[in-house]
């Protein structure tokens, strides 16, 4: 049974923003600084520009096939066997991504708050909550994401606002970094575009498009979503770099967390704010993992031709759980994320471009019926 199409542009925007702004932003400034030192803001911008471009391509593809999911439309474009092959790659890739970001989040929790709690509990509880939530239909999930958006976006702006008195503009300049060349920027921006949150943010659109009110809503929502989330991410990089400078940003694994420890309210109400911001990180981790998990089970249900994505909600749980527990330590985890993420670019960036090109050449188009304008 098809759900009625009722997701609006605002809901699309908030779902994409929630998916992009995950726990990964805790580590984002470090990754940005790594290759291009003080060019971090610029490299983040370029990386997000890449994400923006491929988001537009996915949206264009969605406009051509407004009633079909990616796997359905790829069947008509490149034929059944290839579509299933790539569909299976997408499915596997997102299982890995969701597992790893859940583990990344669990590492953050365990290193700051729960050093003695077993990793299985931290990962398991989060995945169970996510799996329960994906039992709802996609419209309801977009309502849920909508509700959490202000609780994620406003505190992040607040964090930037509180750190403004500490920012030293000299630490940010030069914008293009010291002793960097174009190749560094290319490498760095691809590294940022390969971060798991970018993959999830891009691909959640493929799940949403068949459920948005019409394609206009989908396009407007996706462009707004990527713009707002890019703004938040760049602001965070700016704040961290401005407060710490290059060298101090490089050292901690999660420089944003250190920032939340540093800042203080102008009056004595709470001793430390990092616990409060931890609530925000839990929320943003939840929304990102929820989107990722949704992509997994939605693609899975299309791949195995199931009635609804709900069927897989609990079945995928042990698999993702095992993936999440596979990395032995933080370094190995980040190695995995980097490798898998780079390979993932073939799936999330090149594959949609390929599909769009073939569709343009072969002049394939999906039916536009069943759309409420």
């Amino acid at each position, binding site marked *: 049974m098809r759900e009625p199409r*009722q997701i609006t542009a605002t809901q699309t925007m908030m779902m994409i923003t929630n998916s992009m702004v995950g726990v990964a932003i805790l580590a984002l400034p470090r990754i940005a600084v790594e290759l291009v030192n003080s060019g971090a803001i610029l490299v983040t911008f370029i990386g997000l520009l890449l994400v923006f471009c491929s988001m537009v391509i996915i949206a264009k593809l969605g406009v051509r096939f407004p009633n079909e999911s990616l796997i359905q439309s790829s069947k008509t474009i490149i034929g059944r066997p290839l579509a299933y092959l790539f569909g299976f790659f997408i499915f596997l890739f997102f299982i890995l991504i969701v597992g790893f970001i859940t583990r990344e989040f669990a590492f953050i929790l365990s290193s700051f708050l729960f050093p003695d709690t077993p990793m299985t509990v931290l990962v398991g509880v989060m995945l169970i909550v996510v799996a329960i939530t994906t039992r709802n239909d996609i419209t309801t999930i977009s309502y849920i994401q909508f509700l959490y958006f202000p609780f994620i976006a406003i505190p992040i702006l607040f964090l930037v606002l509180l750190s403004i008195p500490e920012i030293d503009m000299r630490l940010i300049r030069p914008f293009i970094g010291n002793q960097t060349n174009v190749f560094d920027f290319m490498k760095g921006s691809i590294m940022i575009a390969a971060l798991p949150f970018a993959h999830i943010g891009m691909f959640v659109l493929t799940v949403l498009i068949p459920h948005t009110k019409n394609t206009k809503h989908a396009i407007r929502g996706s462009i707004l979503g990527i713009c707002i989330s890019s703004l938040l991410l760049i602001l965070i990089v700016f704040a961290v770099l401005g407060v710490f400078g290059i060298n101090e940003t490089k050292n901690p694994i999660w420089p944003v967390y250190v920032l939340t420890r540093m800042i203080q309210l102008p009056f004595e109400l709470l*001793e430390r704010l990092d616990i409060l911001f*931890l609530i925000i990180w839990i929320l943003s981790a939840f929304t990102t993992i929820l989107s990722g998990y949704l992509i997994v089970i939605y693609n899975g249900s299309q791949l195995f031709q199931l009635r609804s994505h709900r069927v897989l909600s609990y079945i995928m749980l042990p698999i993702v759980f095992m993936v999440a527990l596979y990395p032995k330590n933080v370094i190995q985890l980040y190695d995995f994320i980097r490798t898998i993420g780079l390979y993932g670019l073939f799936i999330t960036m090149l594959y949609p471009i390929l599909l769009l090109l073939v569709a343009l050449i072969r002049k394939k188009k999906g039916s536009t019926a069943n759309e409420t304008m």
Partner: protein
Amino acid sequence: MNLWQAFTQKRKRKSQELPEEPMPIKHHKIEPNNIFSYLDAVNTIKEQFNNEHDFRAREIEVFGEIPATLFYLGSLVDKESISKDVIQPLLLAPSEYIDKEKQIENISELIIKKCLYHAEVQIEDQIPSAVTDLLRGNTILLIEGLQNAIIINTKMVDKRSITQPDTEQVIRGPRDGFIESLETNIALLRDRIPITDFKVKPLEVGSLTKSSVCLFYIDGIANQSLIKDVEERLSKIDIDRILDAGYIEQFIQDNPRSPFPQVKNTERPDVAAGNLLEGRVVLMVDGSPFALIVPATFIMFYQSSEDYNERTNMMSVIRFTRLVSIVFSLITPSAYVAVISYHPELIPTAFSVAITSGRAGVPFPAVIEVFVMEAAMEILREATVRMPKQVGGALSIVGVLVVGQAAVMAGFVSPITVVVIAITTIGSFSTPAYSMATGFRMLRFPLLFMTGVLGIYGLVLGLIVIVNHLVSLRSFGVPYFSPISPMNWGGMRDAFIRAPLRWLIDRPEELHVSNKKRIENPKEIPTTNPLGPENQNSGSGGKSS
């Protein structure tokens, strides 16, 4: 015989001993009989009510010669009305009537039109339905030679007077409340909405209680498919009894396992009328003072009818206070436990030291302490509801002294825990809707457990689960959290705050009503100065000029 056979044999014997089907309830089965003779009908009814204590059969002679019988149940009828409006005119009816009109079929019409004084009279030609009418407090009049019975509505059951409802008190607003009698309740609503579009649709639910349920809506405002859906759900109810509106609520709600109410109930006619005018459907059951309002959304449960009676800015603040108190009643104990036992670095050092010194002698971890106190509070609250009024004073003394003071002095709990519990309890009492407050009150125990195990992580995850559940709920297809998510700006004016009445132009968007406008043509109400200097002379009236 092997073991398995022995086992099955035993099972069989057992099932023989105890017949699984319960004894069939004796239904009064009367064969439908259209054309009946007077004597047969009288005998059938008399047989039916053989030795009933309150069954009465009064024999009279109409027009001086034709024998007739009046049947009624003495406990259910207004005897004075029967004597004055039924028996008296029948006995006094002159026999000339019958001489003029020899056709015997017309006698029933003749009696209704020329003899009976009573207002509510109808004709029934089936004995079973006549018996049902009798059981509802009507009087049956059977006359020899007639093909049908005359039913006179003489029902009178004692009912209490209209009082202010105890569950929904207001400071400013009407003081009347619904009572158990459905007729009176309809009157209260009709009195408020005197238009023909206000429809009352009667239905019957409950195979044995045959309770009359009424569906109220306003034609031209309420969505037609909503009305149809409510009717369909009501017709699907199959149960022997409907003893309160709560029975109906549990059958028609979308998610029966949810801790949150998806149907709003109210005892106040003004609330029911207000919701009818927004395009919702109201249900009432005979014998219950509660009206059910569907579809219900989350925000309705912390709104009070008083919000609209007072000025906007004051009531916005008060409504927001209510929302905060709902949230407090859910998370205060868990947040306290999370901070005390997991993250004491969150609060300023001086305060932290004070709390720790207060907890110095307490033998348990904070989560056990809070849990025990919460349980004690629940017991106290339940006792307050159930106990006789005369011993109320004793309980409050026990509650205050033992649970509060003595527990702290004994070192059983820390003073700050008592403060936390107090905030929680008061918070849950300030919610206008009891059903919603109960839902949140019960959920704080699982939340407390989650916090006890995982600290603030458990608390946030627990809240996420609760919020996700709330957002995914639907009441008759309306998202439970609308107009917050999915967002609707027009609806937001009446969600967290209460905007001025002249801004509330549209009816709630999520109800998809037929007539969207609450205010048809907004006009500026002039704020002129009638007592200004230019008009001061006209105060003395016509005398001066």
